[in-house]
């Protein structure tokens, strides 16, 4: 039992450090890519506001409005699984 608890502490330490490290990596990779793309591969009029949706995406307020509409229309039983632009 004591051995298992020791293993639990190791797992907690190693697990959380690894998860934080990988997500730190996500942040670093993301920031580096954004910097690199902004500098060398930037395109005019693409996501210039940073908040505007690109093709295939919707603004969060619109998504929230659609979700709220569906909830109301179905009495809270319906869920929005996918929203497609046509």
């Amino acid at each position, binding site marked *: 039992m004591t051995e*298992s608890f020791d293993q639990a502490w190791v797992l907690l330490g190693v697990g959380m450090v*690894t998860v934080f490290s*990988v*997500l730190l990596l*996500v*942040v670093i990779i993301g920031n580096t890519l*954004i910097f690199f793309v902004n500098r060398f*591969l930037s395109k005019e009029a693409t996501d*210039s506001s940073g908040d505007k949706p690109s093709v295939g995406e919707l603004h969060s307020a619109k998504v*929230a409005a659609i979700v709220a509409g569906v909830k109301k229309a179905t009495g809270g039983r319906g869920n929005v699984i996918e929203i497609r632009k046509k």
Partner: protein
Amino acid sequence: MEILRQLYDMTAMGEIGETPGVLLMILIGAVLLYLGIVKKYEPLLLVPIGFGIVLANLPGGSMDVVPSEMVELPGHRYMNLFEIASEYGIMNFVYYSLIKTGFLPPIIFMGVGALTDFGPMLRNLRLAFFGAAAQIGIFGVFFGAIALGFSPKEAGSLGIIGGADGPTAIYTTILLAPHLLGPIAIAAYSYMALVPVIVPLVANRLMTKNEFRINMKKQDKLYPPKYKIKNIKTVKIIFPIVLGVAVAILVPSSVPLLGMLLFGNLIKEIGTATSRLSDAATGPIMNTATIFLGLAVGATMTAKVFLDFKTLGIIVGGFLAFAISIAGGILAVKGYNLIAKKKINPLVGATGLSAVPMASRVANELGLKHDSSNHLLQYCMASNISGVIGSAVAAGVLISILG
């Protein structure tokens, strides 16, 4: 009379009467079917699982999954799939070829990747850290599970329920404690269906009214981001490739899940050139995988396996893992707010566990309840998506240390 007796012997009624546990299992299957069909709780999974339980527990149907010892041959060898099918039936063929090999969960992850948009996370990268904090339940509940008498491998499988990710929970359990696959899959999907109940339950206990009202859009206006993304499409295409390689080097055991997730995302982001692949991954492939996964997981739940003290431990422990993960995310944001100028709504931390996108939707509605202009969806999606990556990495750690 003799004819009637022979007719009775031919049916399964006699065996059902002799083993009352079978009736209880059929009832459990019926409850899951009810939850899936009538209450619409995760119907895509609970309906196949519920029906799989019913099929597996009807005596004489040979639709129950047999323990791996029964397909083992002398000299650490196993029966081939043809032998398994002819000896134990088609459900064992499905289980041992698609589930036991760990094939289906990564396939489903590919579909999840093709449905995932990394955009909200890339626009709010610092929020990704809260996807890590919300994995604390996975490792935290390990201690309690050990104290309850679970083996380390079983405790690891139980803990992964806290990641709120069905395919990850199933994949980890297949590799660590396959005999607990049924109860763990049921607990994982049931608690995911209960996200609209569990997130508010934990958030209301840990957050003040002022914290619920922290408006992220206003914070963005007060403290604007340092830079804007000028070409999000290119970033989204390169991101899964670079991240996949980096994670494969750091945590190789998470690659089957994370690699397929990122591949699915890549074929989605490339656009029209690979849209047929993306459509296949999110449609026919994912749906077929879900059917076989659900039925086979249900078929593992025979009375002998399910009606056990450990099942109760899994149900209680799974809830604790879930609640601790949500609390971990909320507390991490609260801690961050103590030192940061730009405040973050702690609901963003609560969505650090996976359950995409339901957790984000629930957090968004909670935020709107306290301030009708407080739309948190895109911020919650940032930590929510990073939570998917976090739980897959946590699974990789569990597998590499305990496996």
